[in-house]
């Protein structure tokens, strides 16, 4: 979008003005991904026995609100429920005249009012029925949101279909003051634009300057001969290169490598500053001194990137490999050449005359451009080798090169459950013994879901939700599942924390409070946006929010 900005006084379009505050976070590319996405919300799955009409689904609607506003392409609501009186005390996207009508249809209508750019549709049938009639239904969406609990069979069907189609799933539970949600990503989920702290991406190459930078440093020869003005405006990068050159002459060509040497080197730089100036020092020298410890470190590949290079997807490219892997493989080849990544090319601001700074900036930019061209060349030869029909765009190569050091691949895990894989159980168990952890809430939600499933399937009476004996049996069973190897692992205190967590859920008999669902809808939408735009780093993979103590915790379950 920045490129497309009009040069004239006309200014931005009305759409750019409407979305201005978010474009500053995810730019035109993120906005485009968002506008090309359609989100499916499965907001309930039938009643819980005769007493409850089932999931009230506020959290799902609140999540959609935060996706419709920034301009998601479209949404589909699946919800067989009709609007009842309690819905009106919970759901902002329903009004008096909605009573008795389809909740899917009514919430869809009121959500669409938020943004005329967004398309929305609704289905007042259970998801299982819809998919039976229309097997491609799920694959027409780019993200699936589920408001739990839903029947085990529906959940399994949705998660499997999503996984088969490479579609992420967010499964959310919100009860009383607490909530939890989990993100199921595809097995391999790469992110290029992770937006790390700019400080951590700085790559100045002072210890191993390329020819042009080295030459620029070498041109600083006789600092003593400069007048005060010139002396106080030599960019600190060149000062460091100059003093490094001097250091190497007296250290057999070696650069300062340990803390002691760096401290000595720093003193050497410091002693070069003139102190008889009006300010009693020089800002450029101050900047140079401050940069010694953080900028004079040999390059080392982050372990996350090393793992990516070693992944099967990177090593064994196929004709239909995703573009991410083609570029990653090209960058790996680039890296193997002299153990460096393409230069990001950005230069921090520093005390300098305009022309000197721009000249130095151009040296960095030119090198970055040259590295990109080299990677493009590698990409092209890979493409030729694989006989790929469509070429990767240079723009995508450029974005990858600029972000190379911090690209990330998340290995998606399934929506966790108590009786899931051994790893999940082990993490739950380990955290249960920690009195500061709120993992007990996750367990409480699992237990609640079990009880609801029993009611839905007719295996337990409706009153079970408020029956101490039923809850106790389920708590014992849950502890049994986690401690199959050694029941002594869960002591009385840990059990008490689980009991307390269930008590908090039982206050509303499994029902939602608007405010908790509004908060959770914000958190879930945030994750949805990160997944859809493929920018920033999404949750991996479960978050628990405790509104009683106003805190949250993340787990990889």
């Amino acid at each position: 979008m920045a490129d497309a900005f009009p040069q004239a006084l006309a200014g931005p379009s009305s759409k750019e003005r409407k979305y201005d505050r978010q474009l500053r976070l995810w730019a035109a590319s993120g906005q485009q991904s968002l506008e090309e996405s359609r989100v499916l919300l499965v907001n309930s799955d039938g009643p819980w026995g005769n007493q409850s009409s089932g999931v009230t689904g506020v959290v799902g609607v609140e999540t959609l609100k935060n996706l419709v506003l920034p301009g998601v392409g479209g949404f589909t609501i699946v919800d067989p429920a009709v609007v009842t009186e309690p819905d009106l005390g919970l759901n902002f996207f329903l009004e008096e005249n909605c009573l008795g009508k389809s909740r899917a249809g009514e919430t869809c209508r009121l959500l669409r009012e938020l943004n005329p750019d967004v398309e929305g549709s609704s289905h007042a049938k259970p998801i299982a029925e819809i998919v039976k009639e229309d097997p491609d239904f799920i694959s027409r969406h780019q993200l699936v949101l589920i408001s739990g609990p839903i029947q085990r069979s529906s959940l399994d069907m949705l998660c499997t279909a999503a996984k088969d189609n490479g579609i992420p799933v967010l499964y959310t539970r919100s009860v009383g003051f607490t909530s939890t949600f989990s993100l199921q990503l595809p097995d391999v989920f790469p992110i290029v634009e992770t937006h790390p702290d700019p400080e951590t991406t700085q790559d100045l190459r002072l210890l191993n300057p390329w020819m042009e930078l080295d030459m620029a440093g070498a041109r600083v020869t006789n600092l003593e001969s400069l007048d005060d003005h010139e002396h106080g405006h030599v960019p600190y990068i060149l000062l460091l290169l100059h003093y490094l050159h001097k250091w190497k002459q007296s250290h057999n060509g070696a650069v300062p490598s340990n803390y002691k040497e760096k401290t000595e080197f720093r003193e050497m730089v410091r002693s070069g500053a003139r102190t008889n100036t009006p300010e009693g020092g020089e800002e450029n020298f101050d900047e140079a001194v401050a940069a010694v410890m953080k900028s004079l470190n040999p390059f080392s590949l982050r372990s996350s990137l090393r793992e990516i290079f070693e992944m099967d997807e990177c090593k064994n490219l196929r004709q239909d490999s995703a573009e991410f892997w083609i570029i990653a493989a090209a960058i790996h080849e680039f890296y193997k050449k002299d153990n460096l990544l393409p230069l990001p090319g950005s230069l921090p601001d520093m005390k300098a005359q305009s022309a000197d700074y721009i000249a130095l900036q151009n040296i960095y930019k030119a090198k970055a451009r040259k590295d990109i061209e080299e990677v493009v060349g590698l990409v092209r030869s890979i493409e030729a080798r694989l006989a790929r029909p469509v070429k990767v765009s240079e723009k995508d190569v450029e974005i990858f090169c600029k972000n190379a050091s911090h690209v990330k691949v998340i290995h998606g895990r399934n929506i966790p459950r108590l009786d899931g894989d051994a790893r999940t159980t082990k993490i739950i168990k380990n955290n249960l013994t920690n009195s500061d952890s709120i993992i007990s809430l996750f367990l409480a939600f699992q237990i609640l879901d079990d009880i609801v499933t029993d009611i839905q399937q007719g295996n337990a009476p409706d009153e079970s939700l408020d029956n101490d004996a039923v809850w106790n049996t389920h708590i014992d069973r849950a502890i049994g599942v986690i401690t199959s190897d050694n029941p002594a692992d869960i002591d009385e205190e840990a059990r008490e924390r689980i009991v307390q967590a269930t008590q908090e859920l039982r206050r509303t008999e499994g029902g939602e409070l608007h405010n908790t669902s509004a908060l959770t809808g914000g958190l879930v939408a945030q994750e949805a946006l990160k997944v859809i735009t493929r920018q920033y780093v999404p949750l991996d993979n479960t978050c628990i929010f405790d509104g009683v103590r106003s805190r949250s915790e993340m787990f990889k379950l």
Partner: protein
Amino acid sequence: MLKIWSMKQKQQQAENAEGADGKKKKKVTAAQLRVQRDLQELTLGSTMKMTFPNPDDILNFTLTIEPDEGMYKGGAFAFSFTVNQNFPHDPPKVKCTQKIYHPNIDMEGNVCLNILREDWKPVLNLNAVIVGMQFLFLEPNASDPLNKEAADDLRTNRDAFKRNVRTSMAGGTVRGVQFDKVLR
């Protein structure tokens, strides 16, 4: 709420603070209070004078600097200080009210002093600002100018610069620009 209040009353006994009855009047603002303190802690030499057009409004005043040494000796330079209600989170706004020939002050009266902008911190006080202002007249700084011509003169020909300072202070013209007469 009850819980909060019982905690409150306990604290009250410890501190022996009291509230007044009836309707309350406007309260001295945090910015006013801070300026009151800062003014009291000023150290003004014989070269500086402050004037308050309205003594009840201590957030707006004028500082006059009359250097007794250096190239600007003999002049009287007036600066307006405007302190807003967000002080000391925001720095005071300082402007020279005369057109003067100085490398760090431009024709619009903007002043380039680090602690008035990029290096301002709420722990700094008005005295630090005033000391910095005074210093500008003792040691004009050519290396980071606002008035580039004046800075170039200072750097390349100090004697010519001194002559220009004298001319400008007398209300004369330098490089085609007429300056305000600021001689005492």
